[in-house]
Structure formats: structure tokens, C-alpha cells
């Protein structure tokens, strides 16, 4: 039943938005409509969860299912009713023809794609590698629990606390990480929740980023086509974008870096839509040689979609404001140029154009972006007096927002500190690493980026200058600005978007060298094949894969996995993690009395139990607090003061788990 409701609601939600966008097929290309469907579906998920979590404090599966069925029904009814006004056929006939047209378009595109790759053996081979990789990612994501450090440390605990409380609210600041759990923007964690709440387990939530990866591939294709790159090379560009080790490895983790970079790419893609960029070239020139073009009735739609995408990005990570700032500048400048070109200079002053451009930006970009991502910052401002708390914001030696930290908390590796701004990224791009990791600090962009994409960027830049390809130059400026302004641009996972620029540049280069393309295509295939073979993480070994294939779903836990990345630190925690995953069920409350390594393993895989930190210097008060919080299980350190206190309460607590370091005691019913 859980799986059925999960599949049905996802099908319903995304189908309704796809049908909605099908009406605007003259405005948006097929690929852009798929990307738009993803964005609107994601928007609906985030908005409904926030509505239930922030306003009604009822973030539960049934309510979420009903509200989404309602909203998607409204979307479908709107589509049918709006189209029926233009058609005289009966409702049944109209729906039948709509569905037939949708399927026809999809099958036509599939046939076209099949023909293109069938006629290019290398492209076909790269596509096969891509398909195998995606299947492998899905297989690993399904087989293994979420094992990455930050996922266990705060991404999943954020989901855990929201599910536990049935509300989006602050949690008590008992530990270092809980402070960050409170202040981090949580849009992507809301997607993680979406992939947990109906299924009542966390089996597929670590595949959440794979949707962004696939949409990212489509986005690169769409941008490439807008750059007038031959569609076949656009497919090359998009598939090669995928062959980035950090993207492959992060696609099966509960991190947010792929999502952030892909959202940035998607927002740029929407801004490149023809109807907002410039008047069509064949548009008649007006007086004085300007094009007196009027914006298409729906010309604002791509900007609105870009704004929504930027908003989701804003609410996904603390670096969101940086990306939104760059996108905002791009929207305003583009709008100003467009309006300057399309208006008669003798009638409209530059100030008027600037005001109109800014108003357009405010209405169609800033407001949707703010609505989708601003909540987290406003909430922090209201609660902590600083939208980006705990970071302190200063300008010219005066503090604007007080915080706890003045710089980046996590220090850079020593080797990075010794290098300058130019050699830092080069050192990382050369990948002086012994293996790849999902959060690879000194590598992860892979050989396609360094060997093929970097020279492509230089060549495309020169080519674009010669050919006055302002679109590509504008794109280059946006990407470069985002890269240079990112405070940790030496860390590949924060700047995955630059691979997108490389992929697009490769498309331009391939287009330019058309007649001699074979050598480039062969190099591209060899590098993609190499990346396919070497994007293995030491966290998932063949031995562990074989072992996990023999285990039942319930036995595939993080403690059994014992992944390389956490093993050294977490070894002594495995005992109680395993016990909790097997024994703590829905409705139970587990109290803990120390700062655990990770909070996530204190919940079961459905996140259906509650966890609570209870600590006090006085035994009586502590025992009373256990009663008040309806605690059913206690996790304590062995030989701690709490261990002595429950030891003196004969018959009230029964030890159910004990190892060298920890003890779990069940609170007996007769205690109450």
C-alpha cells in the first residue's frame, strides 16, 4: 500500500504538471517542458510540506497525500477546462486526443533520439555507458542505506526531526550540530522527506539527487540547443556532463551539492529562452533601426520558472544567496538590454527602462524566488537576529548581523592553504587523490573536465569572441562570476556547475570541428569509459555489495555496512545502532544522555520513533523528566551517572542492550 501510494502520487503530480505544460508547447521545447515539470512538481512538494509543516503543524503522510491529490486534480481540471473552451468536441474526446497527442510526442521524440544515436556508434556507446551507470546508481542506492557523513550528521536528522514533530519548527539546541540543523535552509531535505513519508522507510531517499542528475543532463542539452549547437553534439555535451565522478558518486547520497549546481544550471537555461532574450532576428526594424518588438504574452513564463528554480536553490543551501544574486544581475541586465533594443530611444529614457526592467525582475524573478527560498532566512532573522546565523555579516569593519563565526568554520586542507587562488583549483582538477569520495575535497571533477572541457572552454571563448556569440560570452561571464565568487571554489562539490560550462564548450568545439570530429569523439568516449570504470568509492566495496545482496531489507543497516568513511569513528557505535534499527518501533521514545556521533541512527528506518535529549545534574529531576517525556527506551553511556541512577531504581528499568560503552534500558510499564 505504501509503495502504491508513493507511485500513484508521484505519477499524478508530475503527469498533471506535464499535461499543464503540454498546452504551452509552442513556448517551451519538449526538454524544457520536462525540466519545467520537474521544477513545478518540486515546487508543489516543497510548498505543500511547508504549508502542512509551518502553518498547520500537521506534516503527516495522509494529509500530504490528500493535499497533493487535491492540487494536482485542480491542475488537471484547469488544463482540461481551459482547453475545452477552444475546442467544441466532447470532454471525453478532448481528453482522449490530449492523451494521444502527449504519447505521440513522447514516442516521436524517442524515435528521433533512437535514430540519432543509432547513426553514431560512439554516441550510442556513450549512451549505453550512461544507462548502465544510472542503473548501477539505482541499484546501489536501493541496496545500501544512507552512509555519507553529512547525511548521517545533519541532512537525515533534519528529515527525522521534521517527521518526528510533524511540523517545521526549531529543535532544542543541545549540541553543535543541532544549532546547524536549526539554521540550515531545508528545501532539499523536504524532498528527502517526500521520499520517506509514504514509503515509511529511507530506502530510496538516498536516490533523491539522481533526479537532479538526470534533469541536469537534460538541462545541458537544452542550453546547448539554445546556443545553436547541432542537436547531436548537444547530446554529446549532455551525456559527457554526467561522466563527472563527483556527480556519479553523489547521485546515491543524501547530499545537496548536485541539486544546488543543477538548479543553478536550470535557472540559467530558463533565462536563455528565445522569447525573453532578444527580439527575433526576422522582426521588422522600426524607426532608427531598433526592433519595436513586443514581449510575447507568455514571455514572462521562462523568467518566472527561472525565479522558482532560483528560489528552490536559495532554500537549499547557505550558498544559495550567492547564486541568486548572480542570476538576479543577469535577469536585470538582460531585461535592460532587451528593453533598450525594443523601445524607441527618443521616447523612452534609460532611467525609465531601468525602472521597468527592475520592476519586471521584482515581479517575475525576485518574488517567486523569495517565496520559494526566503522563508528559512526570514525565520533565522526573526529567531536569531541574523538571516545567515551563525555567520557574522560585516561590511567595512561594521557588523551588520551578529553571529558566532566570522569565517568558514571548516578549515581548508593544509595543502590548499599553501597554494594561491590560481594554483588551488588547478591542483584540485589534477586530482592528487588515491580514490574518489562523494565529498571529495581534492578531486572529483574527473578527466573529462581537465583533459577535454578545459581546453574546450578556452577555444570556445576565443571562437565566441570572433563570431560575436554574445550568448555564450554572457554564459561564460555568469559561470565565471559564480565560480570566482564562491568562497570555497577549490572544493569540486561546491562548483559542479562549471562542468556544465565545460560540456557546453565541448559542444561548441565539436560543432566547429564538424568535419574532423572523429578524433574528438573517440577521445570523449575513451574518457567517458575511463570515468565509468574508475568512479567507484571505497565506501561501497564489491565484498559489501555481495554481502548486502544476501541480506533482507531490514538487515541492510548502516552498522552492518560499516562504510570506510565513518568506520574508524563509528565502530564503537555500531552495537546500539543495530539494536535500535531492529527493535525500536513506531511510537517509541528513545531518550539519550550524551552527544552522539550521529543523530540519524537513533531513529529507525521509517523515522517513526521519537528521540529526545534528557540530561540533568540531579537524579530525581532527571527521572521525572523521563516520565514527562513518555520515554520508553533509554540510551546511556555505561558506568555514567545515569547508569547508576537507573541501577538504583530496581525493577523499573530493564537492560535490553549492553556493550563495552553503551547501554539501552527499557522503561518498564509498571514504572508509571
Amino acid at each position, binding site marked *: 500500500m505504501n509503495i502504491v501510494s508513493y507511485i500513484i502520487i508521484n505519477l499524478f503530480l508530475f503527469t498533471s504538471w506535464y499535461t499543464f505544460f503540454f498546452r504551452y508547447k509552442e513556448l517551451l521545447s519538449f526538454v524544457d517542458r520536462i525540466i519545467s515539470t520537474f521544477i513545478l512538481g518540486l515546487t508543489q512538494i516543497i510548498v505543500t510540506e511547508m504549508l502542512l509543516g509551518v502553518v498547520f503543524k500537521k506534516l503527516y503522510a495522509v494529509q500530504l497525500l490528500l493535499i497533493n491529490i487535491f492540487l494536482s486534480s485542480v491542475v488537471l481540471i484547469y488544463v482540461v477546462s481551459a482547453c475545452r473552451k477552444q475546442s467544441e468536441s466532447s470532454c471525453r474526446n478532448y481528453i482522449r486526443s490530449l492523451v494521444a497527442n502527449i504519447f505521440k510526442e513522447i514516442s516521436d521524440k524517442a524515435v528521433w533520439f533512437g535514430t540519432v544515436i543509432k547513426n553514431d556508434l560512439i554516441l550510442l556507446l556513450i549512451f549505453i555507458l550512461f544507462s548502465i551507470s544510472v542503473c548501477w546508481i539505482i541499484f546501489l542506492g536501493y541496496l545500501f542505506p544512507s552512509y555519507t557523513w553529512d547525511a548521517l550528521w545533519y541532512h537525515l536528522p533534519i528529515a527525522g526531526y521534521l517527521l518526528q514533530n510533524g511540523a517545521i519548527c526549531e529543535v532544542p539546541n543541545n549540541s553543535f550540530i543541532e544549532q546547524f540543523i536549526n539554521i540550515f535552509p531545508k528545501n532539499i531535505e523536504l524532498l528527502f522527506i517526500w521520499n520517506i513519508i509514504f514509503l515509511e522507510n529511507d530506502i530510496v531517499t538516498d536516490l533523491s539527487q539522481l533526479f537532479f542528475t538526470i534533469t541536469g543532463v537534460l538541462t545541458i542539452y537544452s542550453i546547448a540547443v539554445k546556443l545553436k549547437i547541432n542537436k547531436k553534439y548537444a547530446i554529446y555535451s549532455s551525456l559527457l556532463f554526467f561522466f563527472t565522478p563527483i556527480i556519479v558518486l553523489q547521485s546515491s547520497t543524501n547530499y545537496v551539492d548536485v541539486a544546488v549546481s543543477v538548479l543553478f544550471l536550470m535557472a540559467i537555461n530558463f533565462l536563455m529562452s528565445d522569447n525573453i532574450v532578444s527580439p527575433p532576428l526576422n522582426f521588422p526594424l522600426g524607426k532608427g533601426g531598433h526592433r519595436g518588438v513586443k514581449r510575447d504574452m507568455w514571455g514572462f513564463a521562462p523568467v518566472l520558472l527561472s525565479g522558482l528554480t532560483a528560489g528552490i536553490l536559495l532554500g537549499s543551501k547557505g550558498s544559495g544567496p550567492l547564486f541568486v544574486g548572480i542570476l538576479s544581475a543577469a535577469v536585470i541586465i538582460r531585461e535592460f538590454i532587451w528593453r533598450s533594443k525594443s523601445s524607441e530611444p527618443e521616447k523612452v529614457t534609460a532611467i525609465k527602462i531601468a525602472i521597468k526592467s527592475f520592476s519586471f525582475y521584482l515581479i517575475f524573478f525576485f518574488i517567486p524566488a523569495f517565496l520559494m527560498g526566503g522563508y528559512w532566512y526570514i525565520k533565522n532573522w526573526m529567531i536569531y537576529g541574523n538571516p545567515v546565523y551563525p555567520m557574522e555579516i560585516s561590511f567595512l569593519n561594521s557588523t551588520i548581523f551578529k553571529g558566532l563565526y566570522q569565517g568558514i568554520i571548516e578549515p581548508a586542507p593544509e595543502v590548499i592553504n599553501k597554494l594561491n587562488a590560481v594554483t588551488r583549483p588547478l591542483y584540485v582538477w*589534477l*586530482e*592528487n*587523490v*588515491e*580514490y574518489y569520495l562523494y565529498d571529495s575535497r581534492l578531486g572529483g571533477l574527473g*578527466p573529462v573536465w*581537465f*583533459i*577535454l572541457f*578545459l*581546453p574546450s572552454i578556452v*577555444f570556445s571563448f576565443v571562437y565566441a569572441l570572433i563570431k560575436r556569440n554574445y550568448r555564450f560570452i554572457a554564459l561564460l561571464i555568469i559561470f565565471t562570476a559564480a565560480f570566482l565568487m564562491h568562497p570555497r571554489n577549490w572544493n569540486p562539490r561546491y562548483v559542479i556547475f562549471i562542468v556544465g560550462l565545460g560540456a557546453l564548450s565541448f559542444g561548441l*568545439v565539436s560543432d*566547429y*570541428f564538424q*568535419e*574532423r570530429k572523429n*578524433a*574528438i569523439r573517440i*577521445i570523449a568516449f575513451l574518457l567517458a569509459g575511463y570515468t565509468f*570504470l*574508475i568512479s*567507484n568509492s*571505497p565506501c561501497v*566495496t*564489491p*565484498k559489501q*555489495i555481495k554481502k548486502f545482496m544476501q541480506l533482507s531489507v531490514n538487515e541492510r543497516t548502516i552498522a552492518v555496512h560499516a562504510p570506510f568513511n565513518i568506520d574508524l569513528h563509528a565502530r564503537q557505535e555500531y552495537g546500539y545502532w543495530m539494536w535500535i534499527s531492529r527493535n525500536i518501533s513506531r511510537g517509541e521514545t528513545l531518550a539519550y544522555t550524551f552527544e552522539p556521533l550521529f543523530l540519524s541512527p537513533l531513529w529507525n528506518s521509517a523515522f517513526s520513533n521519537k528521540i529526545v535529549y534528557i540530561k540533568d545534574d540531579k537524579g530525581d529531576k532527571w527521572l521525572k523528566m523521563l516520565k514527562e517525556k513518555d520515554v520508553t527506551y533509554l540510551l546511556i553511556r555505561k558506568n555514567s551517572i545515569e547508569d547508576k541512577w537507573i541501577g538504583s531504581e530496581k525493577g523499573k528499568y530493564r537492560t535490553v542492550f549492553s556493550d563495552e560503552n553503551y547501554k539501552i534500558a527499557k522503561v518498564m510499564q509498571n514504572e508509571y
Partner: protein
Amino acid sequence: MNTEGRENIFFILFILIVLVMAVVYFTVPERALFLENQIKWWKEFIE
């Protein structure tokens, strides 16, 4: 020089740069250990 000749030169230059980048990339000291780790992974996978 005609357009085709210029394109030929650009093409050769591009391929040469790509080859130089490949040599630089694959001769990084850690690459041998990296490949050794990956070979180990695949050997274990095939077993």
C-alpha cells in the same frame, strides 16, 4: 590561408593541447596508486 586550412591548424592545436592535458593528468604521482585501488576494486568485483 583559407578557412579550411585555418580550421585544420586549430584542430591540430586543439588535439595537441588535449593530449598534453592528458599526459599532465595521467602523470600525477598519485595516479598510479589511484589506478591500483581501482584495479583492486574491479578484481574483487569479478571474483
